[in-house]
């Protein structure tokens, strides 16, 4: 058994550019789903619009590829109507944080039993590289040609503040850690949010001095700060550099959740 059994082999290769990290995240997510021992007929993948959201089209289960930003609202409908189905949502930074921001915070508030995997490439890739809410300050994109002037959104912090039960952030470099985090997310009742920083060589890297895919991976790797280390630095009063991404399991708690099958919900 491997994640390959969850992929529609006849649909591959997928549409992603060479070096795009989305494929890596799909692998890690499917490997985690596979390790849960779920049946394919009991699993539904839902997505919105964007590069990340093309993922369900390559997965053998029932899947909904919906409208821009609304994936979580569709997933809420699926999960509430059939709580016995396992619902996994693929989404991107523009899909989730910009147009779907309201659905995101409310899905976290409801703590509905979904697993949300956000492929955060910090750019609108599908439309050709426009700035997104997570584009770091100073980065170039087609709509921020003089450098992004807006502060970026920290999606994991947002999910924690809004009430998600499980929040983790990893990158496309940390495949094993990411797979484990997704698995923990799938096991956790309530909303699990896993943010995966991914490289976008075509639209982000190309405009931001990453000539090769490897350069961007190296950057992401070098700018990942483990949560444990961050906490230590905070204790010692050291300043946290602004351009670091805190990675690790950021939150695990058991707030009351929605959309859990009745027999499981009973204490």
């Amino acid at each position, binding site marked *: 058994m491997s994640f390959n059994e969850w992929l529609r082999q006849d649909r591959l290769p997928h549409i992603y550019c060479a070096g795009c990290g989305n494929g890596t995240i799909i692998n890690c997510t499917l490997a985690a789903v596979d390790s849960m021992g779920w049946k394919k007929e009991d699993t539904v993948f839902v997505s919105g619009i964007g590069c990340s959201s093309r993922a369900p089209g390559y997965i053998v289960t029932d899947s909904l590829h*919906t409208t821009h930003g609304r994936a979580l609202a569709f997933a809420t409908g699926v999960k509430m109507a059939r709580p016995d189905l396992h619902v996994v949502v693929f989404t991107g930074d523009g899909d989730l944080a910009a147009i779907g921001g309201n659905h995101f915070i409310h899905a976290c508030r409801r703590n509905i039993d979904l697993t949300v995997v956000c492929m955060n490439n910090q750019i609108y890739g599908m439309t050709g590289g426009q700035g997104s809410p997570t584009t770091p300050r100073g980065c170039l994109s087609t709509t921020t040609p003089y450098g992004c002037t807006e502060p970026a959104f920290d999606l994991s912090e947002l999910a924690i503040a809004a009430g998600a039960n499980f929040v983790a952030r990893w990158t496309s470099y940390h495949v094993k850690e990411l797979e484990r985090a997704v698995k923990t997310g799938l096991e956790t009742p309530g909303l699990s949010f896993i943010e995966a920083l991914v490289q976008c060589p075509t639209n982000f890297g190309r405009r931001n001095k990453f000539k090769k895919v490897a350069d961007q991976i190296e950057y992401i790797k070098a700018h990942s700060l483990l949560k444990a280390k961050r906490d230590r630095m905070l204790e010692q009063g050291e300043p946290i550099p602004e351009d670091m991404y805190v990675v690790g399991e950021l939150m695990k708690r058991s707030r009351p959740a929605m959309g859990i099958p009745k027999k499981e919900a009973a204490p």
Partner: protein
Amino acid sequence: MTRTEFWQGNIASAEGALAAGCRFFGGYPITPSTEIAEHMAAKLPKKGGVFIQMEDELASIASVIGASWTGARAMTATSGPGFSLMMENIGYAAMTETPCVIVNVQRGGPSTGQPTMAAQGDMMQCRFGSHGDYAVIALSPASVQEMYDLTAKAFNLADEYRVPVFLMADEVIGHMRERIIIPDSVAHTGRPAFVPGTPPFRPNENLVPGFPVFGNGYGTHVTGLTHDERGFPCATNPQLHAALVKRLVDKIESASEKLADFDIVNPDAEQVFIAYGSPVRTVQQVLHDHPDSSIGFLRIRTVWPFPAHALSIFKNAQRFIVPELNLGQIAREIERYAKVPVVSVPKLGGELHTPKELWKILEAGA
């Protein structure tokens, strides 16, 4: 045993939905449709259904479509401003052929307009509101009884044709209280059966594909992109897109005579009223006050697809008089088919036409 009740229109609609087996309601409060959501919130959990109040109308219709793919009969209710927000996902439902029922208790617009007054200003929006070409079914109730009957019917049509079905009520019908006779049971037609192993979007003879309910291992991919019979995106194939959109429209338009639901009064009359929704009641009053056979009346329940063939029943018609609570949206549609002049009698502001107003129009033409 049938029973008699004295209900508000919105309650009747909610009860009609429950009788039809609606088990999912995703909604957002908006005057004048809120009573439907309130009633569903009270009743659905007791029937094993799900009521969820979403964060906005975009999410309401999205959750309804999501629930519909799990096989549940699902609905939402809203009014003008919320209806505008729903347009995006109504297009998605049309493209993905998802059965769903949307009740629009119309109020005065545009924008926030008149939340507590009646209007019929969304009749064109419900047909053409989302981008691209598609077709839908819209029903228009004129009494509390019809709020019940047509809501139940809407679920059957949505399932049969795999299309969003609108119940285009208005504030007057929604908030009016009337006697209503509750039938023992309502007709229940299921969704077209899906044959496992066949492409999920291959149409049957009536141009509607079988419905592959999620959770059965069919592995259906549903996308709002232009898709082939297997459901996979093929957005750059011109022939495929043309054929898909043509089918989505044809499956409804070609059934327009079968879907048509109208009443005819005095088919030999020269002056003929055409009405749907609450103006029907004013016309009925005119006919009641002047019980002669010189006034014809075509009352339409299925507004979309428009039952054009009904016009030819009035062979002696000299003109069609169309009272509406908008600036003549359906009157213009009637003009497309009518061979005689069409007189639009628009009325804005939220009040119904008075019988006197309509009588004046009749006299002016006589």
